[in-house]
């Protein structure tokens, strides 16, 4: 079932590069190293590469399905499971998208509360931030993609700031290489996958590309760039921290910024965190845009109304997570769901969809 979008709302295929990359880079980057290094220590960079390669496979599967369907996840579900059961699955996917946006925003606010403003109220910041998000999403998918693009380009300078810790690097930290069992790599692979989540939103915005098939190349490049970025950060982290130190550092990336010093600026992490408000903007915007888009397709309401409902729920739910443990739980639940979604559900759907489209063709 083809989903057609009006010509003036379509975007060029090469922008897929920025859409996928900006969605994958979020709050996780500030502290992903520890969760991976717990299992694999100095070999964590291998996990980064293995995880990245596996995601490429999932992207390929999604494109195979979407190219055949020329639609989005709702039409895939409809072909595979029929209208009602498919609708239920789409509804769960919508909830997942919403949870994703909420998680990103709440975790960022936690970073702010830990590093800058311990007494800041969660709901005030959420409210103001979401007004900006609403304003952007109300401009349509084109302006959401614009935010994705600027969210990559504007904070790009931060990449160079990570070179500063190399002054204190100890390359021997990386040795010995290949010193971990497959089981350990598999365990860290699981946590690494969480950092790559976000590309599955392709299932929603695929019909918005001009000649969507051609966007696949750029999509893979965008993901490759994410892999490169994680690898870059992981290597720097591994040579800078000793394994024991890393296990005790929650926000490894943030802590690395601490050693940057200019004649006019110290404590660079403040500037970094402020810039991160722009980095997570594409995450939040895209997630809520996708959630409201799914609601529109499912329930036949206007996207504006759906969006307002989504945002109001966020403002109410966000302050309910108060403690570090609660936020950690939220993060791990959402990422577990994401993990099973991309490595369990998508391959299954790929298989079923293949079968069902064969069956329907015959009928």
């Amino acid at each position, binding site marked *: 079932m083809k989903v057609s979008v009006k010509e003036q709302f379509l975007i060029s295929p090469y922008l897929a590069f920025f859409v996928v990359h900006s969605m994958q880079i979020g709050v996780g980057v500030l502290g992903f190293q520890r969760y991976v290094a717990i299992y694999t220590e100095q070999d964590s960079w291998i996990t980064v590469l293995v995880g990245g390669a596996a995601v490429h496979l999932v992207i390929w599967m999604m494109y195979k399905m979407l190219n055949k369907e020329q639609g989005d996840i709702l039409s895939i579900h409809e072909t595979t499971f029929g209208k009602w059961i498919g609708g239920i699955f789409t509804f769960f996917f919508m909830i997942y998208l919403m949870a994703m946006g909420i998680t990103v925003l709440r975790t960022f606010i936690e970073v702010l509360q830990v590093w800058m*403003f311990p007494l800041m109220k969660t709901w005030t910041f959420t409210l103001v*931030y979401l007004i900006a998000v609403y304003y952007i999403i109300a401009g349509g998918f084109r302006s959401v993609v614009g935010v994705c693009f600027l969210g990559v380009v504007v904070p790009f300078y931060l990449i160079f700031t990570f070179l500063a810790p190399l002054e204190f690097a100890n390359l021997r930290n990386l040795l010995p290489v290949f010193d971990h069992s497959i089981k350990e790599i598999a365990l860290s692979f699981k946590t690494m996958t969480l950092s790559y989540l976000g590309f599955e939103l392709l299932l929603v915005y695929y019909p918005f590309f001009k000649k969507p098939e051609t966007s696949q190349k750029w999509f893979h490049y965008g993901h490759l760039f994410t892999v490169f970025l994680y690898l870059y950060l992981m290597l720097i982290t591994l040579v800078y921290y000793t394994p024991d130190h890393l296990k005790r550092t929650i926000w490894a990336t943030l802590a690395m910024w601490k050693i940057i010093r200019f004649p006019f600026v110290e404590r660079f992490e403040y500037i970094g965190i402020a810039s991160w*408000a722009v980095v997570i903007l594409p995450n939040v915007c895209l997630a809520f845009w996708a959630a409201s888009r799914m609601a529109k397709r499912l329930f036949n309401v206007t996207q504006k109304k759906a969006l307002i409902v989504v945002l109001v729920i966020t403002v109410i739910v966000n302050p309910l997570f108060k403690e570090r443990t609660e936020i950690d739980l939220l993060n791990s639940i959402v990422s577990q769901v994401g993990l099973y979604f991309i490595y369990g559900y998508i391959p299954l759907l790929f298989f079923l969809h293949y079968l069902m489209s064969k069956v329907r063709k015959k009928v």
Partner: protein
Amino acid sequence: MSWFKKESKKEDHSLFKVIQHFKKSGDFIDFHNPQSPVPYWISYFGSLIDVEILHRDILPFLNKSSIKKLDELKAALPIENVTVTSDLEVIQKMMLTGSLLIRFTEKDSHGVLVKAEMNKAREVTIPEEEFSVVGPKESFVESLTTNLNLVRKRLPIPQLEIREFLIGTLSQTRVAVIYIAGIANEENINTALQRVGDIQFHQILDSSYIAQLISDNDNSPFPQLIDTERPDRAVGVLAEGSIIILVDGSPHALIGPTTLVKFFSALEDYFLNWQLASVLRIIRLFAVSFSILVSPVYVAVLNYHYELIPKDLMATLVSSRSLIPLPPFLEALVLELAIELLREAGARLPTKVGQTIGIVGGIVIGTASVEAGLTSNILLIIVALAALASFTTPVYKMSNAIRLIRFPFLIFAELWGLVGIAIAFTFLMGHLLRLTSFGRPYLEPIYPPRFEDLKDAFLRLPFKMQPKRPIELQSPDTIKFSGKAAKQKKDIDE
């Protein structure tokens, strides 16, 4: 035949009535010469007519000629713009825009309308707002005819099309939409023509009225059409495929569609060599970000993040602020407002008094307030520099917008420090992403990213490297000039 007579009598009566009505105005002249070979009545508004045309060409002719019919008179008059009509509406309209009416009998229903409009306009002078040291020094004036001449003489090609509209129920202002057919995009032309044609307003005093009435988002502080007083700039963008709008009575042309970066390019950039021009553009870009961000950053750092500042620099800041009773936010706000006051006072007062105000305000009040311990001298430097930097923008309306958006940044900086500034930036980014000019994206070539157009955005690369028209204008004729000759490679000593 009685009904016919009645009808004509009535018509007779009404032209006579129109004249009688006009006679109530003091500047209306209804003049009868019974002594010429054929007696005639001539009536006109003395305030609208070029008396020289009347005295030199029309009166001597009428006094000698023995023509008795209006049609023959039309052929014989040594002036090209002559109509014979009995349509009261046309007569009324023409007389009100500078025509004179000749009749042979007082109660004639027909008359000859002769165009003898007075064209009194300021001399073409040196541009004041967009002055450049190098380059042409002509600027538009208040007369549309003169302005059209300034444009046409620079583009002597048949493809230059000028569409005129009469807008304003009271002011009846002539508005001209100008473009080069075959170079400007059809869709853009239609948008411009339609929007100008659809304007419903009573009075158009300046081109900025038109700009506000046809802009895509009139709630935005950012101007969406460039206004320029330089004919060379107007012609330059015409050749790229833009559309310009000229308004009678306004010395500013409007340019659209346009993008944000074009507001920061001065025409002088094209007269200087490209390295220098590029450096100047980067300086302007730096000035704009400095102007928006510096006082909010000051407030953010002193309020929340003093750890950000190294010890030595902090010592300087603290010692300059140690005796100041106000918190940084109020201190910055007061100084920013003081600068705005000075600017506003300087703009409203006559030039000579304005200069005095500048000296009194800038030097005396500034020094005194630092000595009195009301503001820190570092903030005074920062705010003054920021004000100075905002004036580097070549387009006046854009520099206004920049000064305005500084205040929301200041408030957000007070709320959440650097994160607040990032949030204000988020709002700004969202707003700019959504803006359009004649339906074309405003933030282009940044988003949608177009590499070709970046050659003439933050930098100005050599002319040879830009053989194509900007993609943003979607011109049907994309090639400006053939770049082949320029591309020939040369080896050493050949």
